[in-house]
């Protein structure tokens, strides 16, 4: 499934200053029963967002109208646990295009990149600055510039650069995915497969 190009994203952000946010919290297993990729945003952070009777939990950030935006800012080791791509789908479907954290779990990071959600890893200090800026002013705007690989707090110009390999960067700037790439390699792959011992 192709996705929209990612160039520059300017948006307010939603803070979630919790460490080790695992993919079971992002989307609990009981909501993985669909056979199509639709509606996962409704169940994003389901058990943190809703009570057992489906009423919203007032103290959860997604239920607080003050915090809005296309950027989710999470604590260290974001996305640990299960390989379910549904977690990345839920984040995308809810309306986020970027997750900022000081550390990402491996598979989650890869899944995000494959579906057009940009994982931006910043230093713990910069993450703290973002949280403080949002706490002081929930309308704080962040700018993520993928070409320049920078993240900026527009209010005061504080900036950090982030890593992304040039292959994935090109993909995201153009809205390509790996399948587009692999499809063109078919002959080479078949030749390799012929020589495999098993």
């Amino acid at each position, binding site marked *: *499934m192709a996705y929209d190009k990612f160039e520059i994203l300017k948006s307010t952000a939603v803070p979630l*200053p*919790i*460490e*080790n946010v*695992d993919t*079971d*919290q992002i989307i*609990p*297993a*009981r909501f*993985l*029963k*669909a*056979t*199509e*990729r639709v509606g996962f945003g409704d169940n994003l952070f389901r*058990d943190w967002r809703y009570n*057992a009777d489906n009423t919203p939990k007032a103290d959860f950030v997604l239920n607080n109208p003050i915090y809005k935006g296309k950027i989710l800012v999470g*604590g*260290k*080791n974001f996305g*640990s*646990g*299960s*390989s*379910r*791509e*549904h977690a*990345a789908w839920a984040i995308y479907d809810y309306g986020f295009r970027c997750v900022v954290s000081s*550390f*990402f*779990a*491996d*598979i989650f990071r*890869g*899944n995000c990149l*494959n*579906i057009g959600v940009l994982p931006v890893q910043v230093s713990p200090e910069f993450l703290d600055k973002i949280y403080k800026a949002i706490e002081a002013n929930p309308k704080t705007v962040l700018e993520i510039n993928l070409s320049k690989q920078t993240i900026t707090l527009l209010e005061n110009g504080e900036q950090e650069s982030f890593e992304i*390999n*040039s*292959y*994935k960067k090109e993909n995201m700037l153009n809205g390509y*995915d*790996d*399948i587009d*790439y*692999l*499809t063109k*390699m*078919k002959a*080479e*792959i*078949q030749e*390799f*497969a012929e020589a*495999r*011992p*098993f």
Partner: protein
Amino acid sequence: MSTTLFDKVWDSHVIRKINDGPDVLFIDRHLIHEVTSPVAFLGLKSRNNTVLYPNRTFATADHNTPTINQHLPVKDPLSANQLKALEENAAEYGITHWGLGHKKNGIVHVVGPENGITLPGATIVCGDSHTSTHGAFGAIAFGIGTSEVEMVLSSQCIMQPKPKRMRINVNGELGFGVTPKDVALYIISKLSTSGATGYFVEYAGDVFKNMSMEGRMTVCNLSIEMGARGGIIAPDEKTFNYVEGRLFAPKGKDWGKAMNYWKTLKTDADAVFDKEITFDANNIEPMITYGTNPGMGTGISTHIPKAEEVEGGVTSYRKSLDYMGFHEGDTMIGKKVDFVFLGSCTNGRIEDFRAFASIVKGRKKADNITAWLVPGSHVVEEQIKEEGLLDIINAAGFELREPGCSACLAMNDDKVPAGKVAVSTSNRNFEGRQGPGSRTLLASPLVAAATAVMGVLTDPRTLL
């Protein structure tokens, strides 16, 4: 040049290296199940692609399946729909499929090794993070997302940057009542759930050398819980003996050829790892977790650490203990327990049932405990019966259910109710993992058995 086992296997599967980008990695064997594959097949169809090598993909139903009355239609329409999608997709593309009720059906990471799908020196992927299990055979095996499932279906490749290398050595001899599960939980408690992120881990040293294949699978299975891409153990005679003669293992001349290759699969003496850690087996006791991630574990005879004693944020730590209903400094032994779950891709193999039976033999299930004993596959189930373990289990007041992932992730009806405490042999104690509001203590089958007969968290060494 000296290289590691991991490098040898990885490098031999790289078709193309992209400058400042991932490697294009050929995948020998691909496992699929009903939950993470349907959208991949939809993607395949929408791009007018087909399955390039149907004989390299194997399907089993496990995540969503009921563990009682499997002969009846699946009641939950959404689950039934996913099972049907898997069956139809497998039939359409000519993929081997072991659906509900098939004698080879079971948890994907249990049936892979049982049927010789898992081989030394192979690359194996599945849309499930516990694919790391198969590293026990000297394979490179790891979990992938659904986009990657589609890649493997259409091209038999994925695109991944090569992870860094880590070696974890555990030397010495394991103490009485200490199992492979405890070794893994101990390592994770020392490294934290992100301590191996970005790495592929080779397990080495006396403890893994002396460990059974089942034990090695348990350890490799839990590699993901410290953030590692996967875990790998050098294949040896034990590995080859396990694989030989299994359904999809090489036969005849091919076996000989494969063996010649497999015998080269070890880390060279002076190979260098990006990180190397060594533990002493003597320091490991039966483990128990007390929090909401697998890194929050401790020796069963100890207490819950104070927030200041652990790495990481105090707020997240306290939030976690609040969820569990526990307090800093609490003693673990004697904690009230409501449910016991024996099963999952971590501890659903024959050895785990033998361990459980060794403790419950001649004893009775405690009245306050609801116990779910779920074999990893029908093959395991048959073995439990053949070895007489079922009689022992039944005599102690336990019942055996039918195979599946079950209460490990509670996608089916096997859900621990809100606020209830489960001692579970599975792999994750995340909030709500075993049902909304459920509280999970991860442990070995011995701890699970001891707790099941005593009714409170119990050190199995007191019953062995």
